């Protein structure tokens, strides 16, 4: 396993700037997740690392060694595609054996057999080895595709939204399996996803990508609790963070178009106009609450209920534990955890 570093990578296609000056490092044995919406440049990044695409400028380093001139085969990475991309004319066994049969490796056939059998056991696909790939379910296909990656020891695993074509149940179980495998085998993994839950649950570190720019790199806690921009704040967390305009008025601090006046945050000076981010779980309904509003809607999820509260003209989402008895149209009072507020300036940057 290797570390992989990107230095000032830029790439543009005919009409779009796909990546602009992206630099980050995936440490050895780390599970790094690139998170971003569709079109952010995540797949482009992966393809550049695999040498399936050539960057316009910048350098890719494996273990501090420049690999820009190397072909995909020589870089020795493993790629798990979103579309599985199992070779349709081959059986599952041949698919798994394919990387080992590469002229680069020249693995003897009995060693291939041992390795394939071993991998099939790990992924619980031993019973499928003789099958043609067209006759597999989505989950089985993705297992084979992952198996094709782990059958050899590549320098890094590149995974391009491998779970996004699976149904929710399967996604959850494969997510756990992947994480378990990565932790027990210590594989360096770069995982691309647009699903913030996958990112938060699996990553050692997350890099948030938006429109070709790397917005923030950090641990899941960093990303969730100290988002660098409103974009990051809105990208992670469901339900979505409340983002409301705030202003100052004679030493107090208020949320515009609402009934909420907050004490001015201590020990920090804020500009006159800011954006305030409040996580739904930091707003809770309390009979002795400081603020008041009307319930617009409730969305019971079982474990918790999303309560839509209208205060003045502002809409706020709040999370209440379990299933509440609150009904729409009811007036409520609520409290906010003031020390957990996020402040952003007008351009969306976090105010320290």
């Amino acid at each position, binding site marked *: 396993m290797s570390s992989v570093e990107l230095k000032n990578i830029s790439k543009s296609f005919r009409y779009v700037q796909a990546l602009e000056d992206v630099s980050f490092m995936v440490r050895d044995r780390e599970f790094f997740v690139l998170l971003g919406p569709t079109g952010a440049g995540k797949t482009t990044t992966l393809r550049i690392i695999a040498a399936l695409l050539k960057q316009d400028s910048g350098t890719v380093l494996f273990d501090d060694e420049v690999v820009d001139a190397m072909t995909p*085969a020589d870089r020795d990475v493993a790629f798990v*595609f979103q579309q599985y991309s199992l070779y349709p004319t081959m059986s599952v066994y041949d698919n798994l054996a394919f990387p080992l049969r590469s002229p*680069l490796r020249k693995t003897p056939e009995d060693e291939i057999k041992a390795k394939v059998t071993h991998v099939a056991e790990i992924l619980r696909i031993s019973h499928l080895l003789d099958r043609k790939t067209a006759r597999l379910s989505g989950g089985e296909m993705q297992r084979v595709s992952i198996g094709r990656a782990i059958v050899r020891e590549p320098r890094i695993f590149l995974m391009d939204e491998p779970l996004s074509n699976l149904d929710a149940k399967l996604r959850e179980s494969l997510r756990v399996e992947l994480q378990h495998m990565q932790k027990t085998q210590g594989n360096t993994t770069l995982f691309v996803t647009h699903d913030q839950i996958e990112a938060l649950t699996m990553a050692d570190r997350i890099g948030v990508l938006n429109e070709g720019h790397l917005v923030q790199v950090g641990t899941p806690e960093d990303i969730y609790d100290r988002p660098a921009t409103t974009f990051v704040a809105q990208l992670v967390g469901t339900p979505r963070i409340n983002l409301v305009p705030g202003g100052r008025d004679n030493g107090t601090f208020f949320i515009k178009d609402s009934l909420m006046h907050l004490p001015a945050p201590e020990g920090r000076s804020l500009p006159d106009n800011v954006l305030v981010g409040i996580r739904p779980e930091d707003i809770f309904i309390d009979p002795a609450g400081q603020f008041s509003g009307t319930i617009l809607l409730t969305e019971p999820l079982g474990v918790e209920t999303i309560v839509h509260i209208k205060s003045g003209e502002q809409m706020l989402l709040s999370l209440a534990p379990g299933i509440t008895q609150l009904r729409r149209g009811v007036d409520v009072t609520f409290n906010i955890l003031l020390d957990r507020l996020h402040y952003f300036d007008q351009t969306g940057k976090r105010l320290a």
Partner: protein
Amino acid sequence: MSDFYETGPSKPVTESIRVDKVSPRSRRIHSLRAIVVIALAIFLLIPIFIMAMTAFKTRSDVVSSPPKTVFEPTLEGFVFLFTERAIITPGRITKLQEAAESGDLGLFDRIALKSGQEITGPSDYVTRLKNSLIIAGVSTLLSVILGFFAAYAFSRFNVPGKDDLMFFILSTRMLPAVVVTIPLFLMYRQLGLHDTHIGMILLYTVFNLSLAVWLLKGFIDEIPTEYEEAALVDGYTRMQAIRKIVLPQAMTGIAATAVFCLIFAWNEYAFALMLTSNTARTAPPSIATMLGRGGIEWSAIAAGSLGFLIPVVIVVFLLRDYLLRGVTFGAVRK
């Protein structure tokens, strides 16, 4: 039916109304369609059937009116087609008759005595058929191989001026063959390509290449690039990936293209007539010239045409699996 939905069944439901069963109506349509297809096939096969019958008729049976449907089959037509014959001299006839009386007369001698003609060697048609096989076979092979690589490049890489090039390739087919035969004839004579195998192979390859590139590009476009990319990452070079991944999946398209190219090169008449005279002459013009040599040998012409059909039938038969199989049966989910 509408009553059923409003009021429910008025009496116990004893038969299934599941929609996934074939309704009698659609089954009727289905069988009607089968009948139409069979009738059409028979109708279209009539000329071939008549040709096949003619090939086995004797000279008198061929011209008899009304045409005979029941007749004694003979290989006379094939003999005429494949052999060069000479009329036996009177001296030889007497010699043969003597031999016949003494009882030691071989099969060929007996035929010679009966027909008054003797086989002197194989006819031109044999070499012509061989020419056809060589020229059509090699040009098809070249068209498909060159076309495959060109189509692959057009499909996968950013070839500068790709659209213009593709149009240019297609435009080589826009002039009717007749228009270009004269200039080609002059060019070929200057270059010494007239009446050579290489010349004809070159011509048919160029002609078929445009078709092959366009057809194959369509088929290769259908194969997702991820397969090759997966192979590249798995430690294979581009050429190895093409051989192991693209080629097996493109077989359907390659087979279809090969059949098209073969049929064109095999059937081509105008160029062959103009640009060949003897050594490289192919079968189609030579069948036609049989019309004019010492009366019309209908059974020989029919036999020639029948024999001419067979190689194409064999090729199509061998490739039938590829031709019939669906284009995408892969494990890519879209």
